[in-house]
């Protein structure tokens, strides 16, 4: 199962167990002007 979160991060979970398989952080600059 693939989901996206705040700050455009992506996480992949095993749909049967809920175990986190991988996560991706695109490193969006978070500082607000």
């Amino acid at each position, binding site marked *: 199962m693939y989901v996206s979160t705040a700050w*455009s991060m992506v996480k992949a979970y095993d749909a049967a167990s809920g175990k986190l398989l991988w996560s991706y952080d695109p490193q*969006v600059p978070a500082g*607000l002007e």
Partner: protein
Amino acid sequence: MNGCCDAVSRGVAAWNGKIFVATFDGRLVALDATSGKPVWSVLTVDPEKPYTITQAPRVIKGRVVIGNAGAEYGVRGYISAYDAATGKFAWRFYTVPGDPSKPFENQAMAMAAKTWSGEWWKLGGGGTVWESLSYDPALNLIYFGVSNGVEWNHTVRKCRKG
């Protein structure tokens, strides 16, 4: 970064062993679905302008289609398509006309420009496609909504002609 309306993400697309996500700062990234490693990444917006993306990409016939947001701060809305396998740019469709002193991208923009007044292009015109779009495979049509125009106040962007 300069962006309106919170750094949410409205989802990903999955196709042919890849996961596609658009980033808040305007990139479109393809990830290997098994490893999560980036396969390609393209910048879909002018980083000097206050574009953001919170939209979920859609994959249509081997191309990833993505819009953007930012009309609140002054940008020109459009959707773009990229080859899902390589990230190569395929096409772009603007939703509002640009600077009329430059050639219009298509006949629709030339027609649309006649309905605008003032110097709307200096603030972009708005009309961003920020919510995820829809596709009808039977009719081979893409459907999308657009945001507010810019200037927000229509009496300014239409010189009280609207």
